[in-house]
């Protein structure tokens, strides 16, 4: 199958899906890259050491520090990262290996987890999962800090298999029980103020167990062994076999790493492409990339982004922007910093708050966002953002609307001659075109025409609402 061509359409699609927005500067930079493969390599050339959040709120104010972290991360996505794909991939991991801020109850450890996705998100899935499992955020979120051999708590081990690595039905209850006991001991420190990770040897069950058909902790003369938990991940992504007793009949007897590779690939596809299952071609490419590269992320993502199946019309028109992605697009279009735009309080009404996945299975695509009440939230957000852009509009002679590409002065839009009449300077079509130019957004001719038509029917002061309508155009809500 021929490789996808580096056309304007394909490149913009690729940039929207990987960098949130098809920034004109990036289009210009990459259109001459020679091939989609080269463009993808450029997009994936992320920094080794992205900066961490600097908390500006006081140490005992967890909620406000959570806001600090949210604003920081949104700014990284929208403007501060030279390679926003690093943040987009981290956002994927945040929605897959979920933890939620209020249960974690620590800005420090939530930031630690988010930084793991940002630093190692293009690294190796085994090491990502292992590190995440021994961080305080995940330990708290899935109650592994309650998991001890005398009273096991299955929450983490179950979700590790069901939602994180293998998918439901590809293991048995016996596997859940064995993995649960293997993960005993990884806890956090409650009784001093550090709340740091703590290995509790006396909680640990180091006996020999069977997981996915393999013996783990074979040398059970070892005393409490912190590596026993991570061993389960090695088995799942290594030499495990889906047992005959598993519910998923088709997968019985298959290597668990194959099942894991397929499960993870479907999830990646859903987040970046569309919500229908990946076609066999790209699915095989993704799966094989994971298996051949020992679950390294870079070849896996590359396999998806360079495959022709990623560039079909079905995929290009197949993904709705999540609220976070919409907010980032609006921040980019208005050139605002997240804290100045101050719109995080509106995100709940759209159905998504960064750092607060609704449950351990994360968010869902497309249909989850498209209903009347969530759309009401988007309308309010657009209204807020267009207000932010125009907040200096009435400042006398200096009135302006500020967008990414610069400001449009009030005097360019309307003039008071002869006084006191206010009459338009820019025509409606020119005004809409100028807004789009400064927002660095492209809309279809049909949508543009409707917005001009609105301006035609509006009073001279109301024409500026064309900015709001641009943000409300359904195309702005497509990924």
């Amino acid at each position, binding site marked *: 199958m021929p490789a996808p061509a580096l056309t304007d359409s394909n490149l913009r699609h690729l940039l929207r899906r990987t960098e949130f927005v098809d920034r004109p500067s990036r289009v210009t930079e990459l259109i001459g890259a020679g091939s989609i493969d080269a463009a993808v390599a450029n997009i994936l050339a992320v920094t080794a050491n992205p900066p961490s959040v600097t908390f500006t709120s006081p140490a005992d104010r967890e909620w406000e520090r959570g806001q600090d972290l949210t604003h920081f991360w949104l700014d990284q996505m929208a403007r501060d990262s030279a390679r926003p794909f690093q943040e987009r991939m981290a956002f994927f991991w945040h929605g897959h290996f979920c933890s939620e801020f209020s249960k974690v109850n620590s800005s420090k450890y939530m930031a630690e987890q988010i930084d793991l996705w940002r630093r190692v998100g293009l690294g190796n899935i085994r090491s990502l999962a292992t590190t995440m499992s021994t961080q305080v955020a995940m330990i708290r979120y899935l109650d592994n800090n309650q998991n001890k051999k005398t009273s096991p708590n299955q929450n983490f081990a179950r979700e590790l298999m069901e939602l994180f690595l293998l998918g439901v039905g590809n293991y048995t209850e016996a596997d859940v029980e064995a993995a649960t006991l293997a993960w005993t001991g990884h806890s956090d420190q409650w009784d001093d103020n550090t709340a740091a990770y703590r290995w509790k040897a006396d909680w640990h069950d180091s006996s020999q167990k069977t997981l996915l058909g393999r013996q783990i902790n074979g040398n059970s003369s070892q005393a409490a062994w912190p590596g026993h938990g991570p061993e389960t991940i090695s088995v799942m992504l290594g030499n495990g076999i889906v047992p005959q007793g598993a519910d998923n009949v088709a997968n019985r007897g298959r290597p668990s790493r194959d099942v894991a590779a397929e499960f993870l690939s479907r999830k990646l596809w859903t987040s970046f492409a569309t919500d229908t299952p990946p076609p066999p071609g790209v699915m095989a490419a993704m799966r094989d990339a994971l298996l051949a590269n020992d679950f390294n992320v870079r070849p896996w993502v590359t396999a998806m982004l360079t495959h022709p199946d990623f560039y079909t019309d079905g995929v290009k028109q197949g993904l709705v922007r999540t609220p976070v992605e919409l907010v980032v697009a609006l921040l980019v279009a208005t050139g605002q910093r997240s804290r100045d735009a101050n719109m995080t309080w509106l995100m709940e009404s759209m159905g998504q708050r960064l750092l607060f996945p609704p449950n351990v299975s994360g968010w869902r695509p*497309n249909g*989850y966002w498209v209903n009347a009440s969530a759309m009401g939230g988007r309308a309010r957000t657009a209204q807020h953002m267009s207000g932010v852009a125009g907040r200096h509009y009435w400042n006398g002679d200096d009135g302006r609307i500020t967008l990414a590409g610069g400001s449009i002065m009030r005097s360019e839009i309307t003039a008071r001659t002869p006084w006191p009449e206010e009459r338009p300077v820019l025509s409606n079509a020119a005004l809409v075109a100028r807004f789009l130019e400064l927002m660095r957004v492209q809309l279809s001719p049909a949508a543009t025409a409707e917005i001009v038509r609105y301006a035609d029917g509006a009073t001279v002061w109301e024409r500026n609402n064309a900015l709001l309508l641009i943000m409300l155009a359904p195309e702005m809500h497509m990924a």
Partner: protein
Amino acid sequence: MLDPDISTADALALLQVAETDPHALDRRRFLQLVGLGLGAGALVGPTSSLLDLSLPGLDPSVWAAGPAGPNDGVLIVIGMFGGNDGLNTVVPITDQQYYGQHRNLAIRPENTLPIDASTGLNPELTVFKQFWDAGQLAIVEGIGYPDPDLSHFNSMAKWMAGSPTGIPTSGWIGRWLDRYIGGGKDLYAAAEIGQSVPLHMIGQAQRGTAVPAGRPAFGASTSASDRNIYQGMRRLGAGDPMTWKGRIGQAMIDQLDMAGTLAPLIPAEADMSGVPLVAEMEVMARLVNANLGLRVLSASWGDFDSHAGQPAQHTSRMSELNAAVSRFFQVLSPAWASRVTIMTFSEFGRTSWSNDGAGTDHGTAAPHFVLGANVRGGRYGQRPSLAGLRRWDRMPFHVDFRDYYGSLIDGWMGGGASDVLGGRAVQNLGLFARSPGTVPPLPPGGRATATPTTTPFAPTAPGRFVSLAPQRVCDTRNGIGAQLAPIGPGQTLAVQIAGLAGVPASGVLGVAVNVTSVNPSEPGFFSVFPSNVAATGSSSLNTVPGRAVPNMAIVGVGPDGKIGVFNAVGSADCIVDVMGYVSAGPGSGLLPLVPSRLLDTRTGVGAPLARLRGGQRLDLAIAGLGGVPASGVDAVVLNVAALRPSVSGFLSVWPSGMALPDVSNLNYDPDRNVPNLVVCKLGPDGAVSLLANAGELDVIADVVGCFTSDGVSQVSVAPTRLLDTRHGIGARPGLIGAASEIDLGVVGIAGVDPAAKAVILNVTATGAIAETYVTVYPDGVGRPDASSLNVAQGATIANLVVAKVGANGKVRLYNDAGGLHLLADVTGYFI
């Protein structure tokens, strides 16, 4: 704890209803109710707004569903996400296995609300207990399905799909909706209150709508400039509905339509409880009341997934559930009571064995509730045995959830269960005593029992007040007008009003009485109500051993001319004095006033600056003061308080110029300040007289209204709780602090007409952390120097308040010091 939302293509046809449709009248009335703020849907294409249509004969409300017919049942579905611990919800109080396995999580029998010899409800579920006592709560035990799945994801999908096997692509209510709607799309036959539509509300062709749990913040404006923007959005939103871009556009248009219809119906977020489920169920009740045609309303919440820290987590969930159901019935118009049933569900129960994190793990079988006026109360299914269960074993199930759902579809939703549930031969559990809309007959003798309202007590016709010379009509201590014995626990004393003490034998709609509890054996409460209504979980006064506690009540009178006085616990004597009655014939109306202090012996207002002595009569001028007209006033409504009395005694208030009658209006004790509302006919000189029988004390009196020939008439409603800050009903949950106040919406709810000028509230204070007073006054005016309730530290005390309604349909309740909880029950209003 998730919405496995699988989307389906929308069908876009709209319901059209012919002018001859018998439901059309309801729609026109609906139109009047909501004015012109209606959306158009796709009636004539995406670009026109209904507001622009001027074609005669076109019915704008065609876009809403057909109004629910009088015999169409409405189902309220409550989803408990995360897996509810059934054992701690319906507690098997005699099962030693439960105590052995649930260990530190188990609830002791004495801490439950016992409903039969082997069962107690979770202590938070007080309103469920009331429904049980009324025979209107069905508990279906042991619900589950074969081959249970312990994954939240999978098990919830099965429960929502209504099928234990197969790939879940549609939900059971969605498939019911497919059959119900037929060919047309209907935005409002089924609604989820929340952000997204869950699987159980999605059918193969139809789906429910997500309605936000608050007034829509966008799309409800009627200004020309905003309507132009909405017009632009509608144009932008037109697109191929088979594409995601088109669906986004359609959802934006739907949102505009919905905002326009709902904005007038739903209160602002600040006016509803801060507890999400409580606000959601308030919204549900308002939507039902608006008769938009909703047949199913669903809401869900969590987190029930208590792997650790279960006691606090589960208690919060149960408290929220109870508050939400309470709030629902407070807001629901009584006319709907026999047409609404509530059901619960969850993806599984929890393990019977607790873990060491004070939690439980995913379980299997669990009980669920079905409640409502037409439910046949009792226990159904079978309680799973815990015998022999080892650490990781789960309970067996006895009722397949398909039979649970099927019993609701066939018993309440018009039938078709087998089709909806994959052809299963559904076993109908028989959960209903009557079909929707059928009202139960009164029990023999018309005697009320201690249960929630079984018959919808319709508000009386407006009546005129006739004040009387105060007279005692009942005293159980000496057998006047009643048995010569205290009222026992859970008993109701029927007190004859019509035909006595100057009250005519007929044409009596209501009465103003002062009720006093004397020598109660336990702290508890009295509830006073019309004889043809059951106690509704409202209270009229709180009994205190060692004290006589009075309170006024202005309540409707039953067709037999009687009122009921219900005593909750222990035994207590009761005195009833009549101050006046509400007549179907001529009489006076209320002129409600902002409270104004007419008497204060501490400062020399209205009387000399001196403590009142026992036996010393005080004449208080009323006419012409505090907003009371100088003439033509029949009676006055005063809030009187006895402050710092030196001994116990009682205060009488009567028309001046008359001999002292044998009545008491206020009983006082040495260590506290006691208020009471007094309705007193004026003497010929426009004054009333007060006399304390013992000791010395300070007295204050605030005038809150008076009765004149052209004041407003009185209507009695079924007593209903509007406010309970302990549980987040009517206001956010929590103590009201010092110098703090809350606003309470009092009209358009519980049968109170939106145009009411004053409401009759019984206000109870409890849990006061310091001595304080409470002032109730209309919102929109400055707080007057008056008090409605005096509260001693730690006391529970009630007072009747006749509160003028403020400009926004609200009253304010102000607390001066410390902190306390407030409850308010409405018994009537003036219009």
